[in-house]
């Protein structure tokens, strides 16, 4: 009964989304107030219906209703309750329901937090969100229904993939989807602006907090995914340039360009067409990512069970949404005015350079991800493009961007004085060079890569500190300023993390009998023993390892090797001692011969947590910037006059 209720709610939501997508849009064109007024209630109703549908699916999982095919395929009576809940989004159908629930959630949020925007604009924005919702809901209802029954019902479920039975599943997809889907709001604002023909600084100011919010979620979502892979997979890697990882990274790069571009459009009224194009591109890349993950065109560890039929549907959705919006862009963009003038050396130019570099980086990642498909489609064979390519190509593009990061905030709008900027950056440059020489040596070995990374990180961090000192002299800086500083500092921290762990990590793969010791990175490890321990739906071998440094015992670590009842593959649960300056990582391999010996891997990873710490700071910076007072100012003037900012 619950499944039928959920299904019914889904169908109702589909009907509401048709109303939400069509009526306010037509009403806005024709000036029909009643239809315009429909937008907000429609968005809220859609959210409530989808919340009900989602709750029904969750209930089916929690009640072990194996007559629902999706539940039977992804759950099990012995699965811990928390994972029974998060298994809702552990497969294709359920994760799509989460996707569309979040779309409705963002729509409802816009409907509630937009009192200062003109109703006509809100109507258009919500209508665009409704149109996207029609496509997704149609996709779910016609090809990927999570409520499909299977009769006779299975006696027991197939269990959730053991790799997913982890807290990571609880946080990573929801955060990631909030980001992906949140970019639809920026997209909707852009389309609304193109339709209305009113593309001005006010539009940019309204769009910014929503875009930043989506960016913050995406940042946290990607960072969490990376951290999850690190502690779950057992070999300490944290980024593999896998097609699905790239599918989340590309919207992030474009969204970063977008939040910088929106700053210019808001402050100077410039780059309007470019900003709109970026907003369309960011969400298009989200949709492209959805396509790549679910259609089977690329091999990936993350891909859902794939079906080309589904791929055709999503491709059609892509053509309608992206093709339609780009056609609209081509039609309306020429009519948009150019905006404020600025000199060759100015903050505008530097932000444009920031955008160019980010877009080139995105293009490179897209090229590498799709190239195998391109070559195969042209009948020219089969190729693989993996980490060696992406690392070789991505890093050189990022270096100029990192250099620019310290310079940009110091440049004045419209016309900047390069000499004055250089003077202000003198000390930072000296500190950066010293860091480039000293830090690698302190870590143990000087290499060009670690030197360059140290230089860039200190360059960014030091210039940030000086900017703060200078700015505090003239009063209390706004939240936007603090947000920028924290986010940029986050990047410096991230760079240090990546460089140090890449350059100085140590690992040993050894054969250990109980009592044996091994030393790595200055730490000592002694295997005390390995014993069997049962789990709710698995059997585990739990090792006890004593961690010591300089002869002093620090703590015990308990790496595990698990065999889930439902799967052939043994799973490793590494034992990690996380610290501010390093992680110590122990992973149990296989039992060897019959002497009670095991193969064990021990790792010393300096500064690895700075990778995700940096991402955390970036997201925090974005969050702080969002809180800036000016986004909460009510526009008291009547329609036609916007906040005094020239259009």
């Amino acid at each position, binding site marked *: 009964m619950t499944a039928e209720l959920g299904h019914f709610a889904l169908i109702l939501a589909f009907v509401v989304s048709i109303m939400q997508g069509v009526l306010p849009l037509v009403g806005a064109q024709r000036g029909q107030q009643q239809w315009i007024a429909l937008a907000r209630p429609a968005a809220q109703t859609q959210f409530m219906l989808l919340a009900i549908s989602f709750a029904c699916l969750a209930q089916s999982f929690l009640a072990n209703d194996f007559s629902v095919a999706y539940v039977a395929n992804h759950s099990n009576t012995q699965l811990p309750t928390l994972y029974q809940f998060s298994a809702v989004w552990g497969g294709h159908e359920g994760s799509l329901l989460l996707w569309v629930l979040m779309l409705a959630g963002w729509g409802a949020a816009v409907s509630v937090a937009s009192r200062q925007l003109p109703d006509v604009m809100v109507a258009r924005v919500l209508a665009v969100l409704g149109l996207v919702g029609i496509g997704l809901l149609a996709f779910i209802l016609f090809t990927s229904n999570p409520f499909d029954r299977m009769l006779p019902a299975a006696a027991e479920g197939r269990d959730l993939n053991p790799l997913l039975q982890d807290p990571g599943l609880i946080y990573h997809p929801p955060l990631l989807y909030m980001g992906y889907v949140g970019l639809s709001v920026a997209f909707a604002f852009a389309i609304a602006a193109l339709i209305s023909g009113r593309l001005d600084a006010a539009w940019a100011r309204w769009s910014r907090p929503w875009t930043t919010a989506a960016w913050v979620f995406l940042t946290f979502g990607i960072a969490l995914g990376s951290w999850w892979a690190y502690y779950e997979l057992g070999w300490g890697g944290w980024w593999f340039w896998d097609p699905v990882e790239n599918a989340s990274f590309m919207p992030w790069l474009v969204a970063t360009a977008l939040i910088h571009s929106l700053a210019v459009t808001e402050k100077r009224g410039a780059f309007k*067409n470019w900003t709109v*194009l970026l907003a*369309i*591109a960011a969400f*298009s890349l989200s949709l492209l990512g959805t*396509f790549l993950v679910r*259609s*089977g*065109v*690329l*091999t990936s560890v993350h891909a859902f069970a794939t079906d*080309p039929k589904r*791929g*055709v549907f999503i*491709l059609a959705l*892509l*053509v309608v949404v*992206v*093709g339609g919006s*780009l*056609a609209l*862009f*081509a039609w309306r*963009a*020429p009519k948009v005015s150019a905006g404020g003038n600025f000199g060759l050396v100015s903050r505008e130019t530097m932000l444009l350079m920031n955008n160019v570099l980010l877009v080139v980086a995105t293009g490179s990642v897209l090229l590498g991800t*799709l190239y*195998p*498909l*391109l070559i*195969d*489609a042209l009948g020219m*064979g*089969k190729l693989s493009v993996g980490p060696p390519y992406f690392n070789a190509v991505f890093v050189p593009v990022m270096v100029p961007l990192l250099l620019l990061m310290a310079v940009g905030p110091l440049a004045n709008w419209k016309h900047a004085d390069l000499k004055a900027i250089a003077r202000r950056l003198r000390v930072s440059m000296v500190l950066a060079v010293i860091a480039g020489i000293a830090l690698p040596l302190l870590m143990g070995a000087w290499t060009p890569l670690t030197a360059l990374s140290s230089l860039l990180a200190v360059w960014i961090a030091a210039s940030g500190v000086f900017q703060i000192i200078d700015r505090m002299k003239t009063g209390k800086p706004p939240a936007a300023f603090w947000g920028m500083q924290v986010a940029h500092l986050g990047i410096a921290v991230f760079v240090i993390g990546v460089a140090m762990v890449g350059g100085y990590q140590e690992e040993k793969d050894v054969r250990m009998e109980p009592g044996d010791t091994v030393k790595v990175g200055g730490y000592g490890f002694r295997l005390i023993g390995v014993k069997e321990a049962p789990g709710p739906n698995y059997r585990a071998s739990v090792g006890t390892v004593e961690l010591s440094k300089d002869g002093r015992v620090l703590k015990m670590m308990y790496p595990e090797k698990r065999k889930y009842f439902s799967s052939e593959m043994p799973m490793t649960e590494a034992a990690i001692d996380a610290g501010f300056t390093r992680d110590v990582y122990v992973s149990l391999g296989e039992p060897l011969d019959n002497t009670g010996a095991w193969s064990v891997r021990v790792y010393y990873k300096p500064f690895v947590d700075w990778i995700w710490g940096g991402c955390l700071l970036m997201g925090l910076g974005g969050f702080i910037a969002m809180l800036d007072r000016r986004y909460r100012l009510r526009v008291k003037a009547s329609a036609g006059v916007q906040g005094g900012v020239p259009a």
Partner: protein
Amino acid sequence: MKRFLIPLGVFIVLVIFLAVGLTLNPRDVPSPLKDKPAPAFTLPQLAAADKSFSPADMKGQVWLFNVWASWCVSCRQEHPLLVSFAKDGKVPVVGLNYKDQGVDAKNWLAKFGDPYLLSAVDADGRVGIDYGVYGVPETYVIDKAGVIRLKHTGPITPESLQKQILPLVAELSK
């Protein structure tokens, strides 16, 4: 203002490639061994360990080289097809028993039928590596001169038998 059409143009090209991509299988890896001589080896036979087999023994005939193992589940799927194919007697099928135990292999053949002229035993998989084996079962069609003409990965289906293997064999036998 034609330049505003560029993004749309780029997108259309992308969509075309993605659409073509939907018809392809990214896991289907063509073999670089096509039209190259079958790598040489000498391995003991499953039925008689004192006798050996080498691809050169089959020169002058068109033959099928099928990689199989008793632990391989998909092999059971294609096996009936191979047995009936071998019954026709047109083209000999030589097996490569890949990373298997002799006893298990013999029992498996006894249970499911033996379509093979003989099976060579590749205990450590070294010959499999030379033949680019990565997914058992795999089947090669080798011509009279000992050149590999086709590598079929995965179990043979009635369709692949009718549409690819039989026509090729007929062509090569002329």
